[in-house]
């Protein structure tokens, strides 16, 4: 059990996390749940960035820095998403994604 953590472990973790995020984004009815699942996928990507940086280019911190930027942008995105959610809820009294089909052509 003392085997060292390899890149594969991190990638497996990130893959599982991404799939969980996909599953959540596809199955959750609540829009806030979908937004959370999207956050999970962001995080999976961030883990990948950090892991690749740590194992493939150990002399720099480019990957970690990029992960930090992604978090920042994700925070901003979630702010916009929650603002939209609030606006939708106020307008239609519901937060379920299946009730919104205004974009259907």
């Amino acid at each position, binding site marked *: 059990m003392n085997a060292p953590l390899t890149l594969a472990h991190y990638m497996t973790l990130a893959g599982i996390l991404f799939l969980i995020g*996909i599953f959540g*984004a*596809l*199955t959750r009815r609540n829009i806030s749940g*979908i937004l959370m699942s999207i956050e999970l996928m962001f995080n999976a990507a961030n883990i990948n960035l950090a892991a690749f940086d740590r194992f493939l280019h150990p002399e720099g911190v480019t990957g970690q820095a990029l992960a930090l930027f992604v978090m920042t942008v994700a925070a901003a995105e979630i702010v916009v998403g929650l603002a939209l959610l609030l606006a939708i809820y106020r307008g239609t009294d519901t937060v379920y*994604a*299946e009730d*919104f*089909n*205004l*974009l*259907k*052509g």
Partner: protein
Amino acid sequence: MIEHAYLIPLIPFAASLIMMFGAKEDPHSPAPWIGIGAMAICLGMSLSILNAVAGGTVPLPYEHNWQWFSFAASIGGKSFLYDMPIGVLIDGPAALTLVVVTLVSLMVQIYSIAYMHEDARYKRYFAFVSFFTASMLGLVVSSNILVGFMSWELMGLSSYLLIGFWFEKDGPTEAQKKAFMTTKLGDSGLYLALLFIFAKVGSFQITQIHQFINQGYMTTTVATVIAIGILFGAMGKSAQFPLFIWLPDAMEGPTPGSALIHAATMVAAGIFVVARLYFVFLAAPDAMLAAAWIGCITAFMAAAMALVSYDIKRVLAFSTVSQLGFMMCALGVGGYTAGLFHLTTHAFFKALLFLGAGSVIHSVHTNDMRLMGGLSKKMPVTFLTMGAAILAIAGIPFTSGYYSKDMILANIYHANQPIFWIMLGTALMTAFYMSRLFILTFWGDDRDHEKHHHAHESPFLMTGPLVLLAFLALVSGFMLDRKGLVYSLLAKPTITAPQAPAAAEAHPAEAKPAEAHPAEAKPAEHAAVAVPVEHAAPATEAPAEAHAAAASHEGGEAEHHEGHLPHWLHLALPFLVLGSIGLAFFLYKGPKYAVADGLKANLAPVFRLLDRRWFLDDAFDLLVVLCDKVAALAFWIDANVVDRVFVDGWGLLMRIVAEVSNLLDALFVDRTVDGFGGLSLDLGVGLRALVKDGQVQEYLMYAAIAFSLAATLILTR
């Protein structure tokens, strides 16, 4: 003077242009004197040339050429510039013909001053006459047969203009069209012959064509084809059987114009061209024989028609045709000298006859001889001069016609016996119908008192030319025949064709001494000349050759052998002619000529045949009608067979093919295209059915599926 011979056609040409475009139309216009002056200058030049030629002071033939035009040509891959020369070629016949043409034209023009004085188109007539003469002179002097042909065609145009001079009437317009088309029919043959010559020889120069034949490059077949073509042209122009139908109708023109056509220009041109290219005929014995027979048939038929006609100009026209037949026949049997000699003498007495007839018509205002009679008292000068012409054409001894016709008959006698007897009969017929004309017109008492009362002698401008021509008609034969002048002047051209050696081999004994010992040539020549008679083969190369060779050495006595009849015939001929004249006198002397009428009643079918001109006009009419019917049939075939079957049928076939093609297109091609379109439409509709109600998570799911599929494909590659 001979170096300025090129001016001879150019001066009258310029004069005609000046008269046509420079002068105002006026019945008293002085413009005709321009043409007369020009012609007088030409006559002077021609006389000086003839003098030089006859005197032997210029080397013959005189030829001078100028650059005319050049064109790029290529033969066998080699390209070069072909230079076409233009020039003059004067030999004995040309010099003599120049004098004849200019003299007759001058006489005609002077005469016309008086004859045409009341005509509305006075100066135009003289412009036409000058133009006509200029064309003829161009043909005579030209060294280039192409230029000759141009002049020939210009002559056709001029004759058209002159015959139809009084175009207000129907007769002249019909006659001019007939003359033009008939001669054009003949011209087509000459044109083909010229093309053939150029294709074979590569030159239009007469001397070069002669050399080409001399060097034996021209086979007999080619020469025959060319000679027949030339003969065809001459048949049209010189009114030979069966194309002589235009000449009697050409009498619709002004009478002096007829004199010009009949004596100096138009009809002489055909004979002259045959003589000019005589070496081609020498190389083609078959064509010579054809010419002889055509001449013979023409002479006989025309003379027969002249026997029954009562129109004074028609009789003269038939007589011209008949005399031209004599000339053609003479050329055909190898009597080159005789033919051209007769052309010369005939020009004088025929011009005289026409001008005399014009004088009579001018006086009594009719062409019908039955309304004349007894004019000798009223018109003594015309009577006497016409009498001279009648004597000449009938062949009374020591007149010009006697010498030339005698020589023709002698040539024919030695070449072809059957033709000779026909021609002898024709010569007697000539004497008969000419005396008949003379007696009906001038002899006895008047038949139509009204006309006779108004008849008067013509003015001096008309009788002057008559007197001069009468003098020439009487003495020109004697002048030319004296000291063999005609033989040196009108020397027969020779060719040294490949046949010649064969001929020399055939008669080595005769031919060689003739050349070696001129003094002994006479017996040798007899033997050589006797050959064609024995074999009854006319105008074969051999005797002509041997004969010419001997002639060039002797230049005198023996050469004239062919020009003499057997002694008894020579003596008998004048008596036969006198008998013929006597018969005419007996038949037509009274005012009623009852004997002749009785004869006419008894021989009605013959007279009818001759009156209708051997039905040749009807034959040509029939030919035209037949051609019309054939054309109609051809048109019917075109409209009903070609158009229906081929054009329409082809169209129908095309339509069927197109329909089938259209069907196949609709069935297969269009279906395929439509099928693909429909398929993609169906696909799109089917795929759209998968998504419902714009659920964003569904879209996301498809995107995820697609993305993962793509990723799988890329990663597992």
